[in-house]
């Protein structure tokens, strides 16, 4: 295969939020608050702290805190290991908070890549059925 599968890509989502940075910072760093908007977790805002984010669907993300600048910047790794390698993901999520006249501009950037898919047959695994569902949607948009 080619190098496409290991290409680094990024996702950026920005939003103006009518609350001050310190309040948003609490929601980003206190475990019981993180759980309310993101996932169950054992987060601790200390560089080097390893934690998990546990999704309602049963998926578990392996994370490690990389940056903690209170009320300004938070980043951690966001790695997902799945039995079906097509779903593996190694990435870093960075939240940046900038004060504005009306509150805060919150920016989330996720940078990472999917490691190579293994050359194997998925059988009738749920993962592949979901994948083909998505592929259909992609193809529908392409036509």
């Amino acid at each position, binding site marked *: 295969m080619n190098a496409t599968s290991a290409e680094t890509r*990024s996702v950026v989502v920005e939003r103006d939020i009518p609350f001050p940075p310190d309040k948003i910072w609490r929601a980003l760093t206190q475990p019981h608050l993180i759980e309310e908007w993101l996932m169950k977790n054992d987060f601790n805002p200390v560089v080097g702290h390893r934690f998990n984010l546990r999704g309602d669907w049963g998926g578990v993300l392996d994370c490690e805190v990389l940056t903690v600048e209170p009320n300004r910047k938070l980043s951690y790794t966001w790695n997902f290991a799945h039995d079906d390698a097509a779903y593996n993901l190694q990435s870093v999520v960075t939240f940046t908070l900038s004060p504005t006249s009306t509150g805060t501009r919150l920016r989330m950037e996720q940078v990472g890549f999917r490691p190579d898919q293994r050359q194997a047959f998925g059988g009738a695994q749920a993962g592949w059925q979901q994948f083909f569902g998505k592929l259909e949607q992609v193809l529908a948009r392409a036509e």
Partner: protein
Amino acid sequence: MRDETHLVFHALADPTRRAIFERLCREGEQTVGALTARAKVSQPAVSKHLGVLKSAGLVRDRHEGRQTHYSAQLGALNPLVDWTREMAGFWQSRFDDLEDLLKRMDQ
């Protein structure tokens, strides 16, 4: 769009080819004869479809005696598995929940 991505889209845009490819993914390696037995088209047509899938890198052939066995090459789908689209939707909905939470939180 890069050429290889275009070839993959083109190959999978046809429902018969898509059905053949899905069968190879789900059931593993098959001969042209076995694929024809369950397709709604003739063996030459199946062979032609396999040729298009092969040129897109979606299948590989292996000769054994007089039989040709075809298998799916999932790696060819990598250009289509764009995780960024999926994650952007995920974060937008998480931010919706974050805003709801902030409204409920004490100062």
